[in-house]
């Protein structure tokens, strides 16, 4: 070795490094084998994309000769690039891959948080004409559309909505073909057993299935891939910029699918729409839906759809984390008691309608109260009648003590409860139906399930508006092509999922509709992107 020139040693070192690098590049493929030995990489993403390496979509690895030169040049290239990592994105990626295109998925979250808000979902709404393995009875197109018209009050696009509804059984079957598993609806969700197919294990299990399918089919998935800019000219996508693991990287594709969600976790944007009240909103889902692509597309001439103030918001436990608290922070006790604001006064009919139908208005109601906070107060008769929530209730033996513990003016709360109790009319309580327990002469009234709050201990839960998702999006046609102002449909930009859901649901919501829109339009976008990338 002593005789060897330093330069030669260096060269050896470099080629060794090249080999290591190649192994590293190929690690996802090596590991995709069921019989690989994973502990080494356990818990990690398919290894992070090395910086300074040219990657071809779907084909990982680079001729080692070019390695050193390529360090300067950082670029991802693929027939189809899909931005986003949730249900719609993966439906599009798998469909485009099945059409023979190379596909790269840019997911801005790290692997543990991949899947966007789909991680938190549980079911999809499906049309069906006869009972299936997981759905009861029938749910015909016209009834589905009528339900949609009712909740949106007409803020929909009929031909797109009907397309989603008609395609929903096909999408459901396609999902099963990818390995997705469904279950008959069980506890706590019986009212949806007819209309909604439940994912076995929930949305994250579904996402895992998709990502496993993507890996098997050679779709390149890049995590921590945050798109920062797109080059769109005359409505056509040419290239884009992203931070890949924090490193500036260019990406090119013949067709682009944008399935990157809404902007609900962008607090500044929420504040633009809602004013200062937005500061007290809690974001129920992913912290990664910052609406960056939505903004980029709108700034590049995409037509917008729906109102930035429109969103799905429910009243959730005020102690929930700012982001990502998911399903466990929901509170279903509102109709079983009374709800007061920070002054200790009631402000809305808690028993207006069955809870599943009123669940989604309470976010907005609480958002309109001072400091965007309210308190649900129940007595021990209500305990055990609603799904337990993750935070324990605040408990006291008198209303006054409960009010103090909640930080409310005790005298006012006592008066509110007294006034409510005095107007409760006798009836036969049944929280499963619109029963005849109501108040008389109270403003606002409580129309159903009104029972005196008089059996200690008393329980209180703080309520905050919890934003699930936003509706502002880009306008699309039935091919998922994004409509560009003054140009018409983009030849190679497609949108799917929450970023275009506003075309179909401009306000209000139907449980499980988001996943249906994502699945149907994800598949359309994937198919059309594959065609455009020919």
């Amino acid at each position, binding site marked *: 070795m002593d005789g060897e020139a330093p330069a030669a040693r260096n060269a050896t070192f470099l080629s060794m490094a090249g080999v290591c690098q190649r192994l590293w590049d190929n690690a996802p493929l090596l590991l995709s084998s*069921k019989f690989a*030995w*994973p*502990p080494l990489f*356990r*818990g990690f993403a398919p290894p992070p994309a090395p910086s300074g390496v040219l990657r071809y979509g779907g084909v990982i690895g680079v001729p080692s000769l070019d390695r050193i030169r390529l360090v300067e040049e950082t670029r991802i290239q693929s027939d189809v690039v899909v931005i986003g990592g949730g249900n719609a994105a993966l439906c599009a990626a798998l469909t485009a891959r099945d059409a023979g295109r190379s596909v790269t998925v840019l997911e801005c979250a790290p692997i*543990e948080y991949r899947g966007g808000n789909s*991680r*938190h979902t*549980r079911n999809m709404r499906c049309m069906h004409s006869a009972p299936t393995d997981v759905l009861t009875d029938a749910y015909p197109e016209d009834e589905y559309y009528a339900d949609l018209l009712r909740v949106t009050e007409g803020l929909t696009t009929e031909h797109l909505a009907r397309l989603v509804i008609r395609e929903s059984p096909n999408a459901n079957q396609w999902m099963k073909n990818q390995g997705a*598993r469904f*279950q008959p609806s*069980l*506890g*706590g969700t019986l009212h949806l057993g007819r209309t909604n197919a*439940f994912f*076995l*294990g*929930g*949305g*994250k*299990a579904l996402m*895992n299935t998709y990502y*496993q399918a993507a890996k098997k089919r050679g779709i390149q998935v890049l995590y921590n891939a945050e798109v920062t800019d797109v080059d769109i000219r005359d409505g056509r996508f040419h290239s884009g910029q992203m931070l890949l693991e924090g490193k500036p990287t260019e990406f090119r594709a013949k067709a682009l699918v944008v399935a990157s969600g809404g902007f609900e976790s962008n607090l500044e944007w929420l504040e633009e729409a809602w004013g200062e009240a937005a500061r007290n909103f809690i974001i129920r889902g992913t912290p990664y839906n910052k609406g960056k692509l939505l903004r980029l597309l709108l700034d590049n001439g995409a037509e917008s759809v729906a109102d930035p103030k429109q969103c799905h918001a429910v009243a959730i436990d005020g102690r929930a*984390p700012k982001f*990502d608290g*998911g*399903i*466990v922070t*929901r509170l279903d006790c509102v109709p079983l008691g009374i709800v007061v604001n920070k002054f200790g006064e009631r402000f809305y009919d808690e028993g207006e309608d069955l809870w599943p139908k009123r669940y989604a208005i309470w976010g907005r109601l609480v958002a309109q109260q001072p400091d965007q906070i309210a308190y649900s107060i129940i007595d021990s008769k209500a*305990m*055990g009648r609603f*799904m*337990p*929530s*993750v935070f324990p209730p605040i408990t006291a033996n008198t209303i006054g003590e409960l009010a103090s513990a909640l930080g409310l003016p005790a005298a006012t709360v006592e008066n509110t409860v007294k006034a409510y109790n005095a107007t409760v009319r006798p009836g036969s309580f049944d929280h499963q139906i619109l029963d005849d327990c109501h108040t008389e002469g109270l403003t606002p009234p409580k129309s159903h399930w009104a029972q005196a709050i008089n059996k200690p201990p008393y329980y209180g839960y703080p309520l905050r508006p919890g934003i699930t998702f936003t509706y502002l999006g880009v306008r699309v046609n039935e091919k998922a092509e994004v409509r560009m102002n003054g140009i018409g449909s983009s030849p190679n930009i497609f949108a799917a999922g929450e970023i275009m859901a506003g075309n179909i649901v401009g306000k209000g919501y139907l449980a499980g509709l988001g996943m249906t829109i994502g699945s149907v339009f994800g598949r359309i976008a994937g198919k059309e992107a594959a065609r455009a990338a020919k």
Partner: protein
Amino acid sequence: MPPNDRIAEGERLLVICNSCRYCEGYCAVFPAMEQRLSFTPADVRYLANLCHNCAECYYACQFAPPHEFAVNVPQVFAEIRAESYKQYAWPAYVRVSGWLAATLGLVVMFLLAGSREALNANFYGIISHETMVAVFSVISGYIAMVYAMGVRRFWKESGERLPGVSAWMQAARDVFTMKNLSSSGAGCTYPDEEHSQSRRVFHHFTFYGFLLCLASTTVAAIYHFAGSVAPHPYFSAPVILGTLGGIGLLIGPVGLYALKRRRDPAIVDAQQDGTDVSFLVLLFLTSLTGLLLLALRESAAMGALLRVHLGVVLGLFLTLPYGKFVHGIYRSAALLRSAYEMARSKH
């Protein structure tokens, strides 16, 4: 963490799971959880023992680490199970090292056999039938007592009465099919996130291998009292049962060990590895020495092989009361309780 902290952690997770319920379609744990609004330490131990550690709920969990709720049911339940075994152990838990037990077993058998030699598969020329029966009756009786008292403690803690026949039948089906590791036919997420039936299959090899060996011994005992004394012909019931069981106990433990090497460390309690592995090794050695003894019973090596085989078997038996085997006892008891509860909740 000390045991009480584990129980508290288990309770914390169950409160989160109970307000989510996305996993209710996976296994028996979640429907049993949904029967409750709050969880006593006894409930937590029961649900932990009902858990088969398939890990599906972990991979499906939107609140799994690094989420701040840090929900990891399979790992926490594994830790709680280990604590519960100690708590239920009668008269008190004793840690028995597999290697020590095996050594002790070998020493005892070599001492009992002394310097005796015998030919033509004359096992009882090395160690008399009476001695074998005496040694293994005493230890088996002790094991049965330990398990009976342990299950009694488990059941007493549940506050339940004795279930009827249908619950026993259901529990038996669950035990013998290991339905809870099959996830409606897809298999469990072990050793990694992808579904696979491999663990269930290798467990079946092990479990049924063990049962076949037990059956072989039982049949041989009946033969003995009926006047047909070992060695039995190659095509007799005890030898066929024992050979099939032995093959199961070669394949099963090797497979389970291989899977164990590859499993996701996030979902297991690594502290139990020693107990788990020594159990697999002893099962494997029991079978290996048994099959060798069968193959070479006519040869001069028979005497040595008999000493080694019986020594290993005795070592295995010494680990049974407080070792890995108890998971099957409390899992079965938990399945019985679950079958009982679910039948009741349907009425």
